[in-house]
């Protein structure tokens, strides 16, 4: 009986709960939700939260760099000396972009922030957009909406505007903090130039937000989409690096969006016209995203995806083999990144060290670290901290991936067969530890290859040691992650990244605001010694590994004694 005939029969009260057909999703969304905007609201909510967090991190980082410089180098003479020592370093230039006007607060801040924050913003944006676009679609949450009044194109357009809101907040907060710090006494940056700077620093995020959305349409899964966007970022970064470090190839900067950002030259020589390129690319990719969304199936891809394949079973003998196979694509990416980064560090070490030598303030640090003549090693020692961050991120990613096997229920295929939980967990963590160790070893090996290519005299064993020196922190984090996973599975991922974020914060503030060694010891990076310039402290490294192993064992026991937990 339809509502209409019911009302004709004199039963008007039957009209109230109207028939829920496939075209009506109001009953499926929380009260008060407008079905046509729900995708935008849901995407925007998550993007805004994340954008606000990162906006604060960006702002804080900029403020810290600007105020430290302004307060430590007060006289023009001291600034000039620093500028001279740093601007000649083509190694650093290759990494973070060229230095201009380092004797000014603006020039120094740009050099210290623009390159790094652009890449960070791009990584943030591509991860977030593929997660909120493709991840939500893969999880089946879009089917509900698309069965309703919303077409795929409209849904994607809404999601794009939600993601855009995230970028706007990222920019807004960065701008706010930069303007605020610009008004303080020793810093003195004009507000308009501070806003332009914030625009420059977040423009990488804008382009890769759109790029991630585009890849979400091209690929067949979230993982694939993230891989496409990440590969693009890696290529653009490499291109920018070549352009910045090779005389005569400077024009190549125009071939990479990361080069465009560099060309904006905020504070030193602002060129707002370049923004046209950046906005143009973002808008084009957004437009393409919407077009492609309408042209493909829900859950399908634009690029051909092989839906059948010949069975390759060599690795599929159990949990360890399966894990190895599943993480292989991701790990190849990480290993390539770590190796490439190590190679680069090794390659530029000699030149970079020369510039350190020229700086009297750097000399002091060097003397403390390793004495005269150890500049190359000192430079490498400081740089390997960045490798350590990469390697530790591998750990965090492995905990998240393992927990996802439990949350999705795929773990059960093992546990309902003759596999104990302890064995499964041990296998999973073992593979992760091996992946981490290989990452460290590759970094060291390739750093040596890079150094050797420039005839820099550093021994293979010392650089391999420096690479492996990054492993204890990563193993420790793996253990902490496993403990969180065992005790509180649903928050394990947050816990791991929380520990990481905490460690960054401590390291960032160490020496500036914090000197309490108990507090410093809570950072997993704090035991890190600057190998190769300092000898790796294998006993503290051993202690960190032991901490990790004990935490992992406790986590595994907790895991074995609790109910499995879904999402």
């Amino acid at each position, binding site marked *: 009986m339809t509502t209409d005939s019911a009302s004709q029969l004199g039963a008007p009260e039957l009209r109230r709960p109207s028939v829920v057909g496939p075209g009506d999703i109001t009953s499926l969304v929380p009260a008060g939700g407008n079905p046509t905007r729900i995708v935008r609201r849901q995407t925007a909510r998550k993007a805004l939260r994340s954008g606000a967090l990162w906006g604060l991190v960006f702002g804080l980082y900029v403020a810290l760099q600007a105020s430290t410089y302004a307060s430590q180098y007060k006289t023009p003479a001291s600034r000039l000396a620093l500028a001279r020592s740093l601007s000649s370093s083509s190694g650093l230039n290759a990494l973070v972009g060229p230095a201009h006007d380092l004797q000014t607060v603006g020039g120094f801040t740009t050099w210290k922030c623009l390159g790094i924050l652009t890449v960070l913003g791009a990584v943030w944006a591509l991860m977030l957009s593929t997660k909120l676009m493709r991840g939500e679609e893969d999880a089946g949450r879009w089917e509900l909406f698309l069965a309703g009044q919303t077409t795929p194109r409209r849904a994607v357009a809404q999601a794009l505007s939600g993601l855009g809101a995230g970028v706007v907040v990222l920019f807004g907060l960065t701008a706010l903090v930069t303007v605020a710090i610009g008004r303080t006494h020793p810093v003195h940056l004009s507000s308009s130039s501070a806003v332009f700077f914030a625009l420059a620093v977040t423009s990488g995020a804008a382009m890769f937000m759109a790029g991630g959305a585009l890849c979400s349409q091209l690929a067949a899964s979230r993982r694939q989409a993230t891989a496409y966007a990440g590969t693009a970022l890696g290529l653009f970064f490499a291109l920018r690096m070549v352009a910045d470090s090779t005389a005569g190839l400077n024009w190549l900067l125009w071939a990479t969006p990361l080069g465009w950002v560099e060309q904006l030259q905020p504070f030193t020589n602002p060129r707002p016209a370049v923004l046209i390129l950046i906005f143009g690319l973002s808008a084009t990719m957004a437009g393409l995203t919407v077009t492609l969304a309408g042209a493909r199936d829900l859950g399908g891809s634009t690029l051909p995806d092989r839906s059948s394949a010949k*069975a390759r079973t060599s690795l*599929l*003998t159990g949990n360890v083999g399966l894990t190895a196979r599943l993480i292989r694509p991701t790990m190849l990416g990480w290993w390539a990144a770590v190796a490439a980064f190590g190679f680069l560090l090794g390659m530029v070490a000699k030149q970079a060290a020369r510039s350190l030598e020229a700086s009297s303030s750097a000399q002091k640090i060097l003397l403390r670290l390793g004495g005269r003549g150890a500049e190359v090693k000192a430079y490498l020692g400081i740089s390997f901290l960045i490798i350590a961050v990469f390697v530790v991120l591998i750990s965090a990613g492995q905990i998240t991936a393992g927990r996802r096997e439990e949350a999705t*229920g*795929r773990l059960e*295929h093992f546990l309902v*067969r*003759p596999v104990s939980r302890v064995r499964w967990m041990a296998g999973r963590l073992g593979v992760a530890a091996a992946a981490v160790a290989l990452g460290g070893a590759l970094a060291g090996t390739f750093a040596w290859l890079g150094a050797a290519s420039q005839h820099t005299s550093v021994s293979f064993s010392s650089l391999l040691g420096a690479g492996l020196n990054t492993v204890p922190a990563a193993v420790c984090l793996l253990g902490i992650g496993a403990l969180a996973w065992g005790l509180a599975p649903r928050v394990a991922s947050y816990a791991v990244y929380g520990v990481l974020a905490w460690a960054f914060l401590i390291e960032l503030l160490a020496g500036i605001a914090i000197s309490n060694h108990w507090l410093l010891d809570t950072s997993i990076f704090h035991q890190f010694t600057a190998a190769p310039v300092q000898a790796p402290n294998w006993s503290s490294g051993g202690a960190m590994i032991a901490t990790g192993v004990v935490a992992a064992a406790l986590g595994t026991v907790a895991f074995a*004694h609790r*109910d499995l937990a879904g999402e």
Partner: protein
Amino acid sequence: MTKAAIRTEGLTKRYGSAAVLNDLNLEVPVGEVLGYLGPNGAGKTTTIRLLLGLIHPSAGSSTIFGLDSQRQAVEAHRRLAYVPGEANLWPSLTGAETLHLLGQVQGQVDVPYRDELIERFDLDPNKKVRAYSKGNRQKLILIAGLMSRPDLLLLDEPTSGLDPLMEQAFRHSVFEAKERGQTVFLSSHILSEVEALCDRVGILRNGVLVDMGTLAEMRHLSSLSIEATFDGSVPDLARVPGVSAVTVDGRVVRCQVLGAVEPLLKVLANSGVHELLSREPSLEELFLAHYGSGDHGSEAVPTRDD
């Protein structure tokens, strides 16, 4: 003492203060096919997950072939296979790769039988799991469960999403398993399936096992539907012992009779009955009798008043 395939003693699972499964005492002898029925949220899946050791009981215990579900899970799992009604698989693996992996993990596979099952269920094993329809994914986990020919099959709505042809193939496979002496624990909402396959049926409601027995026993304990057409005047049947739910429609009387039918037959014989139809309740009717009272909380279960 021969070991039962499944034995539970006071098995209880609480979430917070709500008992999702309450004091379950169950014994499934080796070789039996047991149907496990109950409305949505009755606790069927919870029972199976407890038997598998995926979740821990709040009280009580269970054994599989005498092996404790929690402490000897690995040994117990060597002898069983579990087929869930819906499962996430690894989207990047193909069907063949998935079967290979799960066979390796199980440690035993009857390869010719596996290939026969692939044929029987008409599955293309070269496709990636990502590209399978829901029904094809279900076939895949069914084959993965059946192919090891385990002593015990724990099936939780194993045919959800299968078309009628595949449903037939599934029944064929369960008959086969039964012939080989395998024990089957089948939780299902498809009553015809349970009626066709199962030796005994257990009915669960709100976490409590409200009825258990062979279909014949359950029918014996429940009402028979009678429809009688009379030549002349219609007698008053409401007073006859065991008779209830009497409706009169002209010369046709419909009623239910519980227990002995003799008193009713005597009355009918003396009243010039012209046509008599009697029908045993289908499983569906038995089941609805149990389910129907679900809304009324603690109302007595109608077929169990002896």
